[in-house]
């Protein structure tokens, strides 16, 4: 028993050590159309030059309910079924940044912490004492501070940038899991149905078993 308590105490202590390391800012994700559309807007301006979203096509954006005019501005003369590939070729990317910028289609699901990670990363830029740009969440990042977070000292401006980052994350979360809303909606029906069915099975079970003496 003593050994058991000892192990449990050790487990708890190491768990706390792990929790202290993470410095992600937890966000409540907005999944409504306006937030996602604002996020798409911000992303097309700030991120899309270098980052692709190869699993998302312009048609997906229209189907989701985004403003058709806006979508046609983004795609120019490309067909509606074109994927959101970046304009930066891999060779140029490697020349300028040393790596190919990751595809963003699944980024909101591909990091520990999900959307909160991406948000914390975007707002995590700061100026180091040496005058360089650093990032709290991902110090090795090669991405420049596109939103200008590190230079923003005014609280109002910072709040604006944070709202923008939040919108971008909303869009990325939708892009990573476009059927989420449909899934939740169907889920309520399925579980509601199962609750009724199970309750009925319980009644029938009791009724059948009551035949036994």
């Amino acid at each position, binding site marked *: 028993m003593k050994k058991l308590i000892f192990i449990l105490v050790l487990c708890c202590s190491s768990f706390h050590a792990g929790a202290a390391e993470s410095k992600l800012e937890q966000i409540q994700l907005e999944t409504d159309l306006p937030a996602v559309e604002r996020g798409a807007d911000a992303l097309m301006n700030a991120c899309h030059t270098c980052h692709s979203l190869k*699993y998302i096509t312009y048609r997906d954006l229209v189907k989701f309910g985004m403003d058709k005019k806006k979508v046609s501005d983004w795609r120019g003369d490309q067909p509606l079924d074109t994927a959101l590939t970046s304009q930066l070729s891999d060779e140029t990317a490697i020349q300028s940044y040393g790596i190919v910028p990751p595809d963003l289609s699944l980024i909101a699901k591909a990091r520990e912490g999900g959307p909160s990670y991406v948000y914390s990363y975007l707002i995590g830029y700061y100026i180091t004492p040496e005058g360089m740009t650093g990032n709290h969440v991902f110090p090795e990042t090669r991405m420049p501070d596109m939103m200008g977070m590190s230079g923003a000292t005014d609280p109002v401006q910072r709040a604006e940038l944070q709202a923008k980052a939040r919108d971008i994350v909303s869009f990325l979360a939708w892009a990573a899991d476009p059927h989420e809303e449909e*899934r939740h909606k169907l889920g309520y029906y*399925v579980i509601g149905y199962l609750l009724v069915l199970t309750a009925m099975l319980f009644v029938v*079970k009791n009724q059948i078993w009551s035949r036994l003496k």
Partner: protein
Amino acid sequence: MKSRVIKWIDQRFPFSSFVKHDLTEYPTPRNLSYWWNFGFLAGFVLVLQVATGIFLAMHYKADVTLSFDSIQHIMRDVNFGWLLRYMHSTGASAFFLVIYIHMARTLYYGSYRAPRELMWWTGQGLLLLLMATAFMGYLLPWGQMSFWGATVITNLFRATPFFGDQVVVWLRGDFGVGDATLTRFFALHYLLPFLIIGGVLVHLVALHTVKSSNPSGIDLAAKDNIPFHPYFTIKDFYGLGIFLIVYCIFVFFLPNSLMEPANNIPANPMQTPTHIVPEWYFLPFYAILRSVPNLVGGVVAMGLSVMVFSFMPYLDRSRIPGGAHYRPWYRVMFYLFVVDMLVLGYVGYIPPTDQSIMIGKIATIFYFAQFVLLPFISRKEEQWLIRCGLPPEVETLIASEAKEKNKLPHQRRIGDIK
């Protein structure tokens, strides 16, 4: 009309006698608790996995350049493809959860004891097949964790004496995990479930020979056995309803909680993830593997940690009925074992530190110590229990069942005859 058709069939195939023998007159102990529902649930999940898997295979492409994209195609473009895939990925976890509970029930109530050793051993074989199937299926999405998990596990076969390196290459079909590995894992992932179905049939034939065990651990007299149908069909369906509610909460609301985030990054042989973890159901065994500093020792310990369950019918020397229910020492061991499994699972999950490696070693020693000490503890416990007298309810139960059996010898079940 109906009876004529059935008569026609019966002359050519033992349909009615099968229904009678295995359903409407199949004797089942009436005192089974809900822990006896999990065998049926395992069968259900098996069917669910095969059904969703076949439809997924219609859209999946086993090719390193296409597989990651084809999964995204299923998730985004195929009608209800996301549902199929989340049912299948959640189903894998559900399968292990159900099987582990099924095994825990067997261990708790001592159902592995005579005459049910073959049930326990066929079950052990099914567990190994299930583990192999799950492991191979996990490579198919071709994400980072798929790739590195398969690399780490196939690499363990280096421990094979004399030609370890050749065995690894033979398994992978290449020097590293690659296209050849993916295509063979896909083929085997499709094949093994059908072997599992065959194994389940053997498991069931054995079950219907020895009949179900029950919480009392005593072979019940005829009056305490009731027909499987309708009593246990309805009980199983009610249990299925509860199971499906839990399952659907995960499928519809938390499907990603069971997936490693790193598996949403396409496999990259040039970049090792900082922390490679297997799926939750392999974590305790993975912790045992890591707790032994030497490769061969680790692999042997891991293999043994799964296979050691087979020895239970011989390790448990006690003849006291009812498993842990009437055996206080064994009960303590059972719960400590469950706690030990959870500790090992946690140790397997976190990145290794000096502290966690130390805990892992203690938990590993404790894991095997329980099996090694069981013969002595169970024998001593039996002597102690006989000295102090069995609990009065067991005594009365044994007496009443014996009386019942003497009164009605013609109603004995096959399994009762000693």
